[in-house]
């Protein structure tokens, strides 16, 4: 499946590194194709648990580290419009829901994206992911001329309920950029990358597959996650 030419792509996730694993290949490809991409990252992952033992950071110094990592990931993808939205990790679902929709609506009105990438509501595992997905879907739902909405889903019941992903992009050409985006978040990804390298060396096809393909679901407006808001 080739990655479509777009007017503007808006990516909305709550944590530095959310972009790296699922969509950094897609972001890189859009940028290489000349499409402007904006990444709105809602928090700085202030509550990340990987602080090392012996610790390399404290609860208070972690955001400084993760902010630099986020910028490095953006650089790895060639992304120049990075927005840090200033919310606090693990609190998004407790923000006023209408305020969250407003935040998304403001971004959409400013950027006029033809495609938005976020998580799939109810299939996004982390409460911040879910709250982000809900806010984006609600903002887009209100639009008369809706952009394409590509959602990342990885809950354990995803395949069972949503079936196979609608969109599978081959991102082999930008594999290095994807790897560099993941490596940029080294404070949080070190152990995961180590495990991945090990699996790749053993010829694990699932891991290889994961590095060469990115998967999305079109948001199913006919099966909207809520009847009203």
């Amino acid at each position, binding site marked *: 499946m080739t990655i479509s030419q777009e007017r503007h792509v808006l990516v909305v996730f709550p944590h530095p590194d959310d972009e790296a694993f699922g969509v950094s290949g897609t972001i890189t490809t859009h940028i290489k194709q000349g499409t402007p991409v904006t990444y709105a990252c809602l928090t700085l992952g202030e*509550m990340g*648990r*990987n*602080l*090392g*033992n*012996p*610790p390399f950071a*404290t*609860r*208070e*110094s972690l*955001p400084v580290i993760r902010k630099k990592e986020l910028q490095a990931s953006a650089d790895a993808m060639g992304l120049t419009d990075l927005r840090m939205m*200033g919310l*606090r990790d*693990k609190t998004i679902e407790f923000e006023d829901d209408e305020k969250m929709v407003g935040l998304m609506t403001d971004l959409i009105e400013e950027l006029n994206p033809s495609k938005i990438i976020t998580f799939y509501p109810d299939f996004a*595992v*982390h*409460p*911040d992911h879910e709250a982000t997905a809900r806010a984006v879907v609600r903002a887009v739902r209100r639009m008369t001329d809706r952009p394409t909405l590509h959602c990342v889903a990885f*809950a*354990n019941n995803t395949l069972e309920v949503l079936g196979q992903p609608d969109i599978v992009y081959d991102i082999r050409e930008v594999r290095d950029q994807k790897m560099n985006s993941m490596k940029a978040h080294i404070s949080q990804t070190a*152990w995961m990358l180590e495990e991945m390298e090990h699996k790749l060396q053993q010829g694990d096809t699932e891991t290889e597959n994961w590095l060469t393909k990115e998967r999305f679901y079109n948001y199913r407006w006919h099966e909207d996650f809520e009847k009203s808001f």
Partner: protein
Amino acid sequence: MELVEVKKLQVELDAFAGRDVYLHLETTNGSYATHFNEGFFNAGAFIRNVVINYELGKVVGDSPHRVGLKLPHGWVYAQGITHYELDDQGRLLLAGHDGTGKLAVALQISETPFSY
């Protein structure tokens, strides 16, 4: 951060006693605990920038330690504390890091508010 030495940490706790201090208290299993282990009951708590004034602070036990703060009308305590640091802003940061390097508990006090 360095490993808790009870005597040294006790001195730091004493220094904050009887003063209004901002509290950060957190326990966590991580937001993915139930994703990786569906039977896991995920519980945690988080408080940030609540002002307390404790009359007595104590660190007790072998590592991982317990730390308790006695208030005029109540208590604050954390268990699982392994590391501490008096940071460059004079804030006393205590944390419990498990064997894989993940934070499980944090108890922090400061005379100025912690960031957002």
